[in-house]
């Protein structure tokens, strides 16, 4: 039998094929401190991967990701795949796809942008390029390609 470096989970989410070194950023998106008490998070760094050479994996028990978290992962770790696990079985597996508009995930890097003022609005970016991903703020038209620094 194959030796498992991280044990399987009964229910939850497996984020696989994360570019190597990016798992800790994915954890930041998941906001581990705010996860419910019975969630165990396991992380494997620098794992052999047929597809990528090397990859990271994050498993989160008893949690299914919000669409905001999926969009954030799509920005930070575009090669990632997300599997929903129920009763030890993969119920759904998909790659992370960015919608044409990314809402509420990033803060506009332009401090003078109206979206950084106390107004009743969520940040909103249009995807202008894919591979590599480039976003443009719909309010001030500033471009963003350094997503990690600007997670909301």
């Amino acid at each position, binding site marked *: 039998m194959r030796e498992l470096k991280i044990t399987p989970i009964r229910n939850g989410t497996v984020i696989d094929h994360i570019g190597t070194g990016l798992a800790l950023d994915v954890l930041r998106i998941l906001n581990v401190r705010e996860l419910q008490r019975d969630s165990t998070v396991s992380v494997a760094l620098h794992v052999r991967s047929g597809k990528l050479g090397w990859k990271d994996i994050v498993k989160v028990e008893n949690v299914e990701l919000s669409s905001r978290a999926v969009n954030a992962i799509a920005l930070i770790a575009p090669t990632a795949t997300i599997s929903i696990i129920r009763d030890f079985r993969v119920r759904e597996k998909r790659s992370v796809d960015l919608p044409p508009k990314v809402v509420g995930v990033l803060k*506009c890097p*332009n401090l*003078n*942008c*109206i*979206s950084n*003022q*106390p*107004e*009743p*609005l969520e940040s909103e970016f249009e995807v202008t390029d894919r591979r590599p991903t480039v976003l443009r*703020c*719909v*309010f*001030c*038209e*500033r*471009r963003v390609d350094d997503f990690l620094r600007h997670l909301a």
Partner: protein
Amino acid sequence: MIFPHSLARPMSLHGRDVVSIRDLSREEIAGLLDSAKRMIPVAEGRRASPLLAGKIVAMAFVEPSTRTRLSFESAVQRLGGSCLTIADAGATSLRKGESLYDTIRMLSSYADAIVLRHPNEGAARLAARASDRPVINAGDGAGQHPTQTLLDLMTIRERFGTLAGLKVVLLGDLKYGRTVHSLAYALAEFGSEITLSSPESLRLPEEHRDDLRRQGAKVHDEPNLERAIRDADVLYVTRIQKERFPDESEYREVAGTYRVDARVLKEAKPQLIVMHPLPRVGEIAAEVDATPHAAYFRQAFLAVPVRMALLSAILDRSGRRP
């Protein structure tokens, strides 16, 4: 040949927001400039026109601006409309902490259109969402100022009869200057060649250069002013705006590094026009005013017919001429 009515008419701007010059197609811009030309006798007060009779336009100037506000007010009043003006944000509930969103919601129930000047980039886009009446951006921070771009294009087209194939030099603060970013975009759309001339620290940001390259624009850099204007048709001078600099030492380093005077213009073609969004603070010597090169006062006047054309396209459903 007779065109079907629907094809011969430009796409309607009725009820639309104009937040960025990118909100207007090339055909719409050309149509607005044609209409602005017909507005000139009305803007000069030689003819009356009732195109905006019964209309109220709110002037929400959260950031002070004399020239832009007065030319918008003149445009509305020359066309028989009236204005509600906020000229000092200190006198409004914005000072008490009311959101721009709420202020605009309120204003949109008092007026037929809103003209907004605001210190934050993107404010006009937010206002357009808050308002169920059309919003015209009259400058949002270092962002967009589409009516300035329209009047810049109008000034060039009035002198040369075209915007295609002209050589235009953009001089000065190409980093923070909001007028040059949208002007460069529009010039590229119409097929002008652009030369960028600025101090090293005020170069056009890479993001805008990349946009111009994607448009297929012909753009090159020539920091030396004399060389840049040698075969140019238009020299567009900007002011180095102290208020846009994040740090004063950066401002002091570049303040006063270029000046357009009679000596500089000796090298230029006789038909070269010198433009400036005004106010100028020493970038253009007063001696240039008396030369045929000076186009900046004409440019300031054209603000009125251009804004008349835009306001009537947005507010007058009939498409009547003045």
